[in-house]
């Protein structure tokens, strides 16, 4: 343990908004609608809600209960807490992934956050230079894509640093300073305060933009397509897609990416709660808030506006699991929309707020891990997490060609490892710690009881569901596949074996993992010397 006084949340609403703020991010506004449109529209909601009920909510409840229990035993990091629940060192080292995920995702997420800030600034100062009168396909598409490629430095490695520093680097510095400052201020004064203001502002701006989009009709001089066409593109169900396993994998991936379960964040946040705080209702409320932003705001705004102004073809080219809809397509929408710069600025402000409430949650678990494993104070832990984060940011910023580094970290850390951690957590909760004890722990101070049906789901359905999805995820993403035009698309496995950029990123990740494992080893020695119950053999203090 460090010598710092134990931190606590200021209020129950504060912790709910902080967790919801962590969950509500770019994925809600950009990734969800693209995924839904590409994977069966309305029919996508069937596997999506099944994944929410069978995985998202149960794993979330388990993680909240694990975190609070670990906090009562004096631990606030995933390695410490998972060691208790797994009753052994293997759980502690599996818990290293619960630190790697927030830290690794922070490596690239803060860059995307700075793109949002940069776009926001551009829209506040006149837009990105698109002329609505020019042809969309021949002029606006190349210009928008070119602008985005320039901002991310996609042309070559180090592109942002050659020919003078790119202005997006200023946005990056501001973003990093904001993140570090709020994390340094601590849970209640920093993260909780930001989320208490940012979440309502986001909801309000989102509803204003939603009303504007739904009242667009069919604006003159555009594609002639209406709001009904945009909604039809996203929501009309295509039941054939339900027979495609990829749809189920995409729906599950979306739930995990979106809810922040298995991410290492909830377990850390919940560890600062008191024994009588309600983790069942808090967990459900945070999940429901995230779903509101995702389904209601994310599901109605972006794709609908995009279809109305630039048509189905361009919209469909930008959908899928990527964020390109926001940066490559929506600028053309704002160029043609009356008051487009104002709505563009508002939209990118929402994205920035959504992103910063998420990125703050990525630094906090790592900071807490450094404090308790190394016994250092908050100044040193903040410095260490800042330096480590900057090294990762610098790596992704420099190796920007084709966004391979970003893409590789996103795939392995931001998708694959999350499912692995969630699997370990649900097995630890239902089988190792014991379902009855786990449920009893979750029910401490709870207004709501976890229904018996969910107890069955946690024990049997969720672990099997997760294992099937992980196998499916590997089958659909790792091997090479044949595209519709007959060409071969490289799977992630062949990229690891053959692509130098991917290999370099893997080496970087490996060094990061080894560093975190070494710190966990040092921490375990300290915790043992302090007489802490790091293998979960004793009951928790009240």
């Amino acid at each position, binding site marked *: 343990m460090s010598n710092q006084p134990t931190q606590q949340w200021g209020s*129950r*609403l504060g912790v*709910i908004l902080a967790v919801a703020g962590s969950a509500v991010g770019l994925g809600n506004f950009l990734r969800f609608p693209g995924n839904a449109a590409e994977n069966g*529209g*309305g*029919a996508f*909601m069937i596997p999506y*809600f099944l994944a929410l009920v069978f995985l998202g909510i149960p794993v979330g409840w388990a993680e909240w209960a694990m975190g609070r229990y670990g906090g009562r035993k004096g631990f606030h990091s995933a390695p410490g807490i998972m060691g208790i629940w797994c009753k052994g060192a293997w759980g502690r080292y599996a818990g290293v992934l619960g630190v790697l995920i927030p830290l690794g995702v922070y490596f690239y997420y803060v860059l995307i956050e700075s793109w949002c800030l940069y776009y926001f600034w551009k829209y506040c100062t006149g837009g990105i230079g698109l002329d609505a009168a020019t042809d969309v396909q021949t002029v606006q598409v190349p210009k928008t894509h070119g602008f985005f490629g320039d901002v991310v430095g996609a042309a070559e490695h180090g592109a942002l640093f050659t020919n003078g520093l790119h202005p997006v680097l200023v946005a990056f510095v501001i973003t990093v300073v904001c993140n570090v400052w709020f994390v340094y201020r601590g849970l209640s004064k920093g993260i909780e305060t930001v989320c208490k203001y940012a979440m309502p502002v986001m909801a309000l701006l989102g509803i204003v933009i939603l009303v504007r989009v739904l009242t667009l009709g069919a604006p003159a001089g555009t594609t002639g*397509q*209406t709001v*009904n*066409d945009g*909604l*039809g*593109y996203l*929501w*009309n*169900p295509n039941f054939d897609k339900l027979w495609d396993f990829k749809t189920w994998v995409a729906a599950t991936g979306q739930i995990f990416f979106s809810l922040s379960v298995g991410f290492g964040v909830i377990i850390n946040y919940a560890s600062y709660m008191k024994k009588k705080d309600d983790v069942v*209702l*808090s967990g*459900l*409320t945070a999940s*429901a*808030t995230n*779903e*509101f932003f995702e*389904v*209601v705001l994310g*599901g*109605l705004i972006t794709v609908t506006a995009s279809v109305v102004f630039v048509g*189905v073809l361009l919209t469909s080219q930008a959908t899928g699991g990527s964020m390109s809809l926001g940066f490559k397509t929506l600028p053309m929408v704002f160029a043609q929309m009356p008051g487009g710069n104002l709505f563009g600025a508002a939209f990118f402000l929402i994205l920035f707020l959504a992103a910063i409430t998420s990125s703050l949650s990525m630094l906090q678990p790592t900071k807490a891990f450094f404090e308790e494993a190394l016994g250092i104070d908050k100044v040193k832990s903040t410095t260490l997490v800042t330096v480590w984060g900057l090294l990762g940011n610098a790596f992704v910023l420099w190796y920007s060609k084709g966004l391979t580094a970003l893409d590789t970290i996103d795939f392995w850390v931001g998708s694959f490892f999350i499912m692995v951690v969630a699997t370990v957590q649900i097995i630890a909760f239902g089988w190792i710690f014991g379902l009855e004890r786990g449920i009893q722990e979750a029910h401490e101070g709870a*207004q*709501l009881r976890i229904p018996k049906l969910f107890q069955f789901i946690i024990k049997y359905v969720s672990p099997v569901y997760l294992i099937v999805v992980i196998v499916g995820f590997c089958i659909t993403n790792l091997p090479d596949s044949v595209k519709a035009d007959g060409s071969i698309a490289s799977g992630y496995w062949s990229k690891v074996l053959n692509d130098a950029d991917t290999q370099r990123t893997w080496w970087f990740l490996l060094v990061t993992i080894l560093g975190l494992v070494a710190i966990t080893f040092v921490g375990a020695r300290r915790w043992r010397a302090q007489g802490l119950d790091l293998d979960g053999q004793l009951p928790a203090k009240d």
Partner: protein
Amino acid sequence: MLATLNALGWTFMLLSISCVSALTFWCFKKVLFPAHDEPNLPPGLGP
């Protein structure tokens, strides 16, 4: 594949949005206005 929102699309959209909105509203109602146990009434009062 342009298609105006059809009846099934409406159904999926409205069902999804109303379920999510109702759950969010219900949760926040519980969080902001927690139910308290009935107070112990003095003898002679109450039914």
